[in-house]
């Protein structure tokens, strides 16, 4: 199977997460009075769920423009960590391909790609790029399409289906195979404890504390336990 198709297959389950989430954004943006082109503009130009919801909510509350922008960008700061983490794998690509990857770098594409790169380490840069584009295909274009559907239809998928929990399940299913060594398990454990302890911090900044704390814990564990990476 080609790298692209492998990626497409691995990204496909995320449709269950993307469709309701995108429709919800379309509905809420329309209810907030945004015309169709602005609603779709958010999903195409910003392409970041949590940041879009934050911006929408603050716009609704008539917060100052700079506050809206700064708050939503704070929610997106983890993207810089993803960028750093994926650079050892994709840094050799031509600049335009790195630009394409950067545009499509969201939680789901990052997580699935990095899981695959660690599982199959001997891939070339172009195989890794093709895999990334495969993962992206059932995630990013549907994000635009179902934002539009939500805005046009004006109805979300019923909440009692338990779909709110599709996102945690999808990510947790990937975390399992990522916990390869004691250092990885320590990193995950420390990150979870910090995430719960700092959940009260505004604009998702608790996530940054937890992520950085987990990374430091993992790196320290690797050094002190002499774990092979």
């Amino acid at each position, binding site marked *: 199977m080609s790298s692209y198709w492998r990626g497409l297959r691995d990204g496909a389950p995320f449709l269950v997460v993307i469709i309701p989430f995108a429709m919800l954004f379309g509905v809420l943006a329309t209810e907030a009075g945004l015309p169709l082109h602005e609603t779709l503009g958010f999903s195409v130009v910003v392409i970041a769920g949590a940041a879009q919801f934050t911006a929408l909510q603050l716009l609704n509350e008539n917060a100052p423009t700079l506050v809206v922008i700064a708050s939503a960008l704070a929610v997106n700061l983890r993207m810089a960590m993803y960028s750093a983490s994926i650079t050892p794998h994709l840094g050799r690509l031509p600049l335009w391909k790195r630009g394409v990857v*950067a545009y499509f770098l969201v939680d789901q594409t990052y997580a699935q790609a990095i899981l695959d790169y660690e599982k199959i380490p001997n891939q070339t840069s172009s195989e890794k790029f093709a895999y990334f584009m495969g993962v992206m295909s059932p995630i990013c274009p549907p994000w635009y399409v179902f934002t539009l559907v939500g805005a046009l239809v004006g109805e979300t998928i019923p909440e009692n289906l338990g779909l709110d929990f599709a996102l945690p399940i999808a990510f947790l299913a990937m975390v399992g195979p990522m916990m390869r060594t004691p250092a990885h398990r320590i990193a995950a454990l420390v*990150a979870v404890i910090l995430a719960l302890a700092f959940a009260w911090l505004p604009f998702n900044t608790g996530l940054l504390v937890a992520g950085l704390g987990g990374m430091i814990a993992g790196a320290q564990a690797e050094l002190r336990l002499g774990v092979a990476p």
Partner: protein
Amino acid sequence: MSGSAEVWAVIVALGLGSFGLRFVFLGLVGDRAMPDWVLRHLRYTAVAVLPALVAPLVVWPNATDGDPDPARLAAAIATVTVGYLTRNVFAGMGVGAATLIGLTALL
């Protein structure tokens, strides 16, 4: 709600800012070698950030207005455990979804 010019200002600024955050290392570092200590930390980015991202959603689910829910907790534990033991993402997702649906129907 704010005017159209302001909404577009937010969209464009957020778009540029988000792309900047995503491009900063991919674009500026590229294939230049990073120091060992940096790489050592980056190896644990995914395994730290993803559990941190979902932990609050598991313990305080939106659907129950933040009240801990036994079905969701059990589904989360089942998902990680199966994913860890089988190293298979699809197996983890399947068992997690089945646990959630089954327990929600029972409880």
